[in-house]
């Protein structure tokens, strides 16, 4: 879902609602800015009060912390897998065997 597929338009409130949804989403998002830039990352925080409303992301790949003002955001797309969603392949709930991305040979015997 994004601003362009019916979730929001150009209005500030709609962008704020979209950022709020992204904040609660446990996967990466793509933020499209007014300058035509796309920032892909995990949106971990937002400051939605006052004049300086902004979203904060950890950018995928570079690991940089990026802050983008609400007024510069044109769209937010939910492009990464929701890590809190039930697994589709097995029907088992959530991740299996551990979240350590470096852990070898992880297994689980019970869902």
């Amino acid at each position: 879902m994004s601003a362009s597929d019916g979730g929001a338009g150009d209005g500030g409130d709609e962008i704020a609602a979209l950022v709020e949804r992204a904040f609660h989403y446990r996967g990466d998002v793509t933020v499209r800015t007014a300058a035509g830039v796309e920032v892909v990352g995990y949106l971990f925080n937002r400051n939605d009060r006052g004049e300086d409303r902004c979203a904060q992301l950890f950018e995928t790949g570079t690991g940089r912390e990026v802050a983008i003002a609400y007024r510069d955001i044109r769209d937010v797309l939910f492009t990464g897998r929701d890590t809190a969603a039930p697994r589709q392949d097995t029907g088992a709930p959530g991740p299996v065997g551990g979240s350590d991305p470096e852990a070898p040979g992880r297994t689980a015997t019970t869902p």
Partner: protein
Amino acid sequence: MGLPAAQAWTVASYVLKQRLRGRERYPLVLMLEPVLRCNLACAGCGKIQYPPHVLRRALTVEQCLAAVEECGAPVVSIPGGEPLLYPHIGELVHELTSRNKYVYLCTNAIRLKQKLEEGVFEPSKRLSFSVHMDGLRAEHDLSVCRDGVYDIAVDAIGEALRRGFRVTTNTTLFNTAEPMRVRDFFDAMMDLGVEGMMVSPGYSYDAAPDQDSFLEREKTVELFSAIMEGKPKRWRFNQSPLFLQFLMGKRDYECTPWGNPLYTIFGWQRPCYLLQDGYAATFSELMDDTQWEQYGRSSGNPSCQDCMVHCGYEPSAVHATFSSWRGLRDSAVATVTGRL
């Protein structure tokens, strides 16, 4: 109860100091999460569901120490994620204990024996391994979704005790808990020789894989009453007896969400260890700008209605202990007699 006198005195004098200064809100235990990644994926845990690049992130030791200084709490608990996956865990613990902080290193113990053999830690009266144990072998392995973890943890506990470390256990109970089995489990932990146990009902994380096993408030009281009523004196708990009485429905407290603040890779979590309503850049921003009246049971916040978790209510119990002579007396009586 199982809290060493020196630690109890440190906490008591800290609380009294805050009260004499007239501080309405003060932290008791800093929850410090240097990493979010874990080598388990427990069914009731909602802390680790993030993309891999987020799970690879870690706080620096300097960031951790700055947070500890800024917060000022006398006790630092290091949960996670699994803190033994943090590459600088030995250095961090050393720095904290040398700053006179009491440290609870919360671990699933899968890597504990290895770390002990590598000499990563030195025994200290200020360091306690708080080993995650959710029950006897069958219940624990089911809870952590992996066979064999109970035996690994028991082995590591034995090794830590042999080497002179303080060891406690931390247990989260869900609606699948059977009181008699939990009582047998507490006996087993005491037989192992741990200093004390910590126990709490689980919190219903939205992100947790298993959404069916969280306890509602009435069921929590029912369960803890059945477990704790007439408890043997040999069970030692590393937590406030008034909090245990609260879990048994003998006391009513309001939540103290600022009591155990959480600092993590995202910043200072608002409002508490369990809810994620946003992050503050500094501890003072967390304390000053959070709308605390929106949280706790009396606020009507639906996320708080069934919560009886230790991170919100143990600070309330400690506050109650030092708020009146009666609180102090009740706590002392329960501590000395072992009766709840």
